């Protein structure tokens, strides 16, 4: 699906100015722990959306390392202006939705978004 569809499904706001809304997103990864993102998101990349409630700049630095397709902040969380600037510099589109993480994931899954990894190896 495209970023535009994700925006519409979640009545989200794109907060990084003129982001390319036709960008294709196929996979999702949701976490509120950056430790989890760093240790589990190895296979992610340009086609992946990170769903998170973390709004500090480290999420953008991590997103940059993973070449993430986009990041959506749940529960109406909104990062500081500096963090948004950092995302623009790194060409990572940011969205904000009022939905909680569960609802965000559920809606996207229902519309065909796949997990970037379905389960961990040792759990």
């Amino acid at each position, binding site marked *: 699906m495209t970023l535009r569809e994700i925006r519409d499904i979640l009545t989200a706001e794109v907060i990084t100015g003129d982001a390319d809304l036709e960008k294709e997103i196929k996979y999702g990864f949701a976490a509120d*722990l*950056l*430790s989890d993102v760093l*240790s589990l998101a190895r296979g992610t990349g340009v086609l992946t959306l990170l769903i998170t409630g*973390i709004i500090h*700049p480290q999420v953008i*630095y*991590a997103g940059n*390392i*993973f070449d993430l397709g986009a990041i959506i902040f749940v529960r109406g969380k909104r990062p500081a202006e500096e963090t948004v600037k950092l995302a623009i510099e790194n060409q990572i589109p940011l969205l904000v939705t009022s939905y909680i993480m569960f609802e965000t994931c559920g809606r996207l899954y229902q519309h065909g978004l796949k997990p970037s990894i379905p389960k961990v190896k040792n759990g």
Partner: protein
Amino acid sequence: MAEADENIRFHEMFHIEGGNFTNAGAISSQVKKILKGAGFSSKLIRRTSIAAFEAEMNVICYANQGNLSLFITPNFLKVVVKDEGIGIPDVNLAMSEGYSTANEKIRELGFGAGMGLSNIKKNTDEMILTSKPGQGTHLEFIVYLDQQANE
């Protein structure tokens, strides 16, 4: 571990300020930029950058200051991270997944789940960690260039 002093094509050292979370991750982003500019594969860049990110966070979370050096050689990438900090009393225990001494502040930022060191090991081909409690920690890791093609 392979020696980095032979055929070093590139070397850069970055200073890391302990306790300063504002730009935590910025050095790893620079490492990534350098590796991208050098034309390495995205997988190799990602593995090295993830490990560098974890190492950078460790210095910021647990040390007063430190530095991260990136070496590029014809055969491998090497990162050396040295810090002046509290050190690690039991390296084997610190390496086990889930073990963490992170305080509330670190956890509030979404770090400190005790996955960092094992994640560095997972993403690299060789890793050496030595530490003297009260003095600091020395971490080195290597990612080989030629193994990337086989993955």
